[in-house]
């Protein structure tokens, strides 16, 4: 065996294999967001789906982030054409209801969809406890660095983005993040 040749070949091939191996351990869709820890972008968005008492807001009302300061905000971007949004809808709605009366505000933001489709979808899904707003031109979505739906942003009481969840959220995650942020706010 020509050891010199084998050593050169190994020196060329092994780093490439290591590089490809490292690439395979990473999920190309899992892109870290630079936003957690930073001030959330302000928004003023109109309600199209009122939600249910006691969390409801009148259709046409403008929800401003500034007015939610002092509360933990759960901002969920969704669309009626998004299949994964179906998986989390009931969980979000029920969990939001369980936090009624506490300093937590759940808000749905309709992403690249018609309000009429959104309203119909909510009806088909059996209602939604918290209100949803429209986002014309997806300006808020872009301000929040949205890749797709569903994505959920958890804002602390001081208005900073504390956590971003990509894909459908589950109850354990929501409660863990919201309870932690409420505990920090109460200190």
């Amino acid at each position, binding site marked *: 065996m020509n050891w010199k040749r084998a050593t050169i070949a190994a020196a*060329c091939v092994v780093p490439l294999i290591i*590089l490809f191996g490292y690439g395979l351990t990473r999920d190309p869709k899992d*892109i870290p967001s630079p936003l957690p820890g930073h001030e959330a972008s302000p928004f003023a968005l109109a309600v199209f789906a009122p939600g249910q008492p006691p969390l409801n807001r009148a259709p046409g009302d403008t929800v401003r982030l500034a007015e939610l300061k002092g509360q933990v905000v759960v901002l969920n971007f969704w669309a009626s054409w998004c299949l994964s949004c179906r998986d989390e809808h009931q969980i979000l709605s029920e969990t939001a209801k369980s936090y009624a009366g506490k300093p937590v505000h759940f808000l749905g933001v309709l992403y690249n969809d018609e309000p009429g489709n959104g309203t119909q979808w909510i009806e088909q899904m059996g209602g939604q406890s918290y209100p949803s707003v429209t986002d014309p031109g*997806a300006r808020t979505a*872009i301000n929040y*660095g*949205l*890749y*797709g739906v569903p994505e959920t942003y958890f804002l602390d009481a001081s208005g900073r983005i504390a956590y971003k969840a990509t894909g459908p959220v589950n109850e354990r995650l929501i409660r863990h993040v919201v309870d932690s942020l409420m505990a920090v706010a109460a200190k």
Partner: protein
Amino acid sequence: MTRLLAAFAFAALGALGAVQQSPADSVLEARTAEVAAQLRCPVCQGLSIQDSPSELSQQMRSVVKDQLRAGKSPDEVKAYFISKYGEWILLEPKPKGFNVLVYLMPVLLVVIGLGWIVVAVRKWTRPPDSPA
């Protein structure tokens, strides 16, 4: 027939609008296209927001245009998108840290390849040892 005439009139008006685009608009369009070509479409595979027909890309192009119109420089517009999406949003990553590999690897591979070719050609063209 009426519909056909209306369609012709609409097309003619559109063409007239295109012709009457002011130089300032053309410059803004060109600057928008230049910046948009450097930003990655978040919902596509390896396409810029300039090339992608997706709705989000169109909306992002609109943000680029609005920010340029408002007086931001192309670097400031790119910095805005980096602040929201991270450096991933740039189609050409900045040459620092792990990203340096992207720029170094092709050069390194070409150098290694050329070296191998030189060695191989020398070997093939070496005259056979003359018998003693």
